């Protein structure tokens, strides 16, 4: 899993350099496989600029000669080939001497006879997703309304990011999200952990009449939740979100899809956004496929299913292979105005079987097959709800469709002092044991021969892993 370090530090920020963080995580069982550098090699030379004027180039139809204020006494002259450059824009500029992510070092040079003192940048040139549509216009994309020309670009936009790539062992699906890794870092360094980003939920529980869901195979779908958002405006995501997704290895698409990916990377729990107006009958049914049933998935391929696989269908037939890949018929488009946000739990072994049998692996199937917990559904819903409201101007309808059995009561494991010493060969003070467990979200109560440890929902798998300790 790729975790952009600034994102991790948002939740747990130990006063340690990246190499020390790597060491701590590796030695507590979350091995750092690699540290990647995303974006520009060094931030020098990248500044905010304001376009004062953009005149046609005397000798080239497609080039414009721009006057750009960079905070110096004299504005700079920069030749730009982007069709969207215009006077008044706030833009990102690389000055001579700056090095782009592809290794190109800029210099002052002539373009068709006109001197250019740098380059106005597109999002793609900074390894921030998107950017096929010309230069990056910062107005309205960043929180600060007015950015002074000359401000270092790195102060306002993550253009140089350390990304740590982690090996998550099969017993730790709770670490498949950035916040789970933050909790691990908290336990490993004792640095404070910010409350979970899903603690505040702008949505609400209760009935929801705008859509309905039927789950016919609860043994393969322990929980299915859905919320509905109206007045959704589909647009490009803000730069911070695109930069963050790009660094984590995801391609930004549009604000709704990006929100589902962001909420997944943060909580570990995959989400799927339906265009509710394109869900026939506004009703979803979760059922086993029939042998030989065919479904067309988002990638345009037709897949042949069997009776052990699960589909989600509407009144017109199957739209998705549950937990693996959505269907094209009800996906979010530029015209989408109403979104049904699905967040469900699926049987890990069943998803593993389906994705191997179909030869179809996705970010979602790779997570579900490791065994996510039903409680995580509402974590992801809460994160997505806030962002849908903030970034898409959407209105969340009251209520949440929530189908599924009550999860089992938390298990309590007896941790005996004598056994700890006997297995490890060293003494760990009981108070220290409780402290470590607490940092990992395990509550503990002292008893005569040790601790009674309560397993949190996200670590439910730990019960099988440590019998009779």
């Amino acid at each position: 899993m790729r975790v952009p370090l600034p994102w991790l530090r948002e939740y747990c920020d130990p006063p340690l350099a990246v190499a020390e963080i790597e060491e701590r995580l590796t030695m507590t069982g979350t091995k750092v496989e690699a540290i990647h550098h995303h974006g520009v090699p060094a931030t020098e030379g990248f500044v905010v600029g304001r376009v004062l004027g953009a005149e046609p180039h005397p000798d080239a139809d497609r080039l414009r000669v721009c006057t750009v204020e960079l905070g110096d006494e004299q504005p700079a002259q920069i030749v730009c080939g982007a069709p969207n450059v215009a006077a008044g824009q706030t833009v990102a500029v690389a000055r001579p001497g700056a090095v782009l992510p592809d290794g190109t070092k800029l210099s002052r040079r002539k373009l068709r006879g006109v001197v250019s003192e740098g380059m106005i940048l597109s999002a793609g040139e900074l390894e921030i997703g998107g950017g096929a549509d010309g230069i990056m216009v910062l107005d309205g994309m960043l929180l600060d309304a007015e950015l002074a020309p000359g401000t270092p670009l790195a102060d306002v936009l993550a253009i140089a990011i350390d990304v740590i790539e982690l090996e998550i062992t099969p017993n730790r699906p709770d670490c498949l999200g950035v916040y789970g890794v933050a909790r691990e870092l908290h336990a490993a360094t004792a640095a404070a952990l910010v409350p979970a980003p899903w603690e505040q939920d702008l949505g609400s529980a209760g009935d929801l009449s705008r859509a309905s869901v039927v789950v016919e195979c609860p043994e393969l779908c322990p929980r299915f939740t859905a919320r509905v958002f109206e007045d959704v405006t589909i647009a490009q995501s803000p730069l911070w979100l695109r930069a963050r997704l790009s660094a984590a290895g995801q391609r930004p698409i549009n604000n709704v899809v990006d929100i589902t990916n962001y909420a997944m990377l943060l909580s570990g729990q995959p989400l799927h956004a339906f265009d509710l107006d394109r869900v026939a009958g506004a009703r979803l049914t979760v059922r086993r496929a029939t042998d030989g049933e065919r479904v067309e998935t988002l990638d345009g391929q037709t897949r042949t299913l069997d009776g052990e696989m699960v589909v989600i269908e509407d009144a017109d037939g199957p739209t998705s292979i549950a937990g693996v890949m959505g269907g094209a018929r009800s996906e979010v488009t530029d015209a989408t105005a109403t979104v049904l946000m699905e967040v469900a739990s699926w049987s890990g072994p069943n998803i593993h079987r389906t994705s191997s049998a179909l030869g179809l692996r996705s970010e979602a199937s790779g997570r579900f097959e490791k065994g996510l917990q039903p409680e995580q559904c509402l974590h992801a819903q809460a994160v997505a709800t806030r962002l849908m409201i903030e970034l898409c101007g959407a209105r969340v309808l009251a209520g949440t469709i929530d189908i599924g059995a009550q999860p089992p009561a938390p298990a309590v494991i007896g941790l005996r002092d004598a056994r700890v010493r006997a297995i490890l060969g060293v003494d760990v003070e009981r108070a220290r044991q409780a402290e470590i467990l607490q940092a990992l979200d395990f509550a503990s109560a002292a008893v005569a021969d040790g601790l009674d440890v309560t397993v949190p929902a996200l670590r439910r798998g730990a019960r099988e892993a440590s019998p009779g300790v």
Partner: protein
Amino acid sequence: MIDRIAKLRAQAEGEIAAAASSEQLEQLRVRHLGRKAELPQLLREVANLPAEQRGEVGKAANMARQALEAEIHARAEMLAGEELERTLHEDRVDVTLPGAPPQPLGSLHLLSSTRRELEDIFLGLGFTVMEGPEVERVHYNFDALNHSPTHPARARTDTFYVSPETVLRTHTSPMQVRAMEAHPPPLYVVIPGRVYRPDSDATHTPQFHQLEGLAVDEDITLADLKGTLLEFARAVFGDERDVRLRPHFFPFTEPSVEVDVSCFNCAGTGFLKDGARCNVCKGEGWLEILGAGEVDPNVYSHVPSNPQNAPGYDPEKVQGFAFGMGVERIAMLKHGIPDLRIYYENDLRFLEQFA
């Protein structure tokens, strides 16, 4: 008559003196002294002579015969001596001459010699060596090792199935349970052997080799595991090495660890003397060498008590560690071999480097 004898004697003496070989001499003996030769004939006819001639002729003939016999004998000895001398001379070996062109000599394959080296190290630590079946029951390969019924490793994409209940073992670990079924605690064994998985690329081959270790007694701790593996790492990679245990996960050990040895190429610093990043550990300073842990109590629960292993393996009474390492990986690290497949291509240019 006397003259005739003297003539025969003179003729024979001349020929004997001229004889050049033992064979020629033997022919002369037959010709002059054999049954049909003239001189013995004369001797036999002495009885027919007039009495006054008998003494003189008989004496002369006898003397001639004795003289010839003596000469033949003398000549024979001389010739035998000469011939021996000649034989000795001709058959002499000149040890200073160059030998015949060298013939190719077989040697142990690197994997065999590495396996033996590993076995020797653990024998020295008090372990015994066991072997087990490569075609294994699902029970020993997965069930008894605490793999859940839906564990991904059981998939047909990850395991060769011979039948629904039989596999080509995917690791040497099934021998943990077999060893405990066959022997009572305390138990200290290593199990080398071939294992099989459906993978093939630069770091995976469908068949490869592992060495399993199992130590079970009343009080074997994670600290004992570390000490044992430190000894092992130093024996293989040098006395200066250190080991570290990183928490990990395996279904059949709890707690589980991955074990790293400090890099022998850069002394664990991650950098070479000239400041370049170490190309063996990729700058990490540590090399992952094996997986290990304390045997999960659930594994003991899968060991039935029987007359051979009495008193059996009660999870509340015994504890110990297990480890498993790839023989190919150890040899790759130690000798800087870049591609696993080289082991099996039998290219002499590779094999001879380790002969």
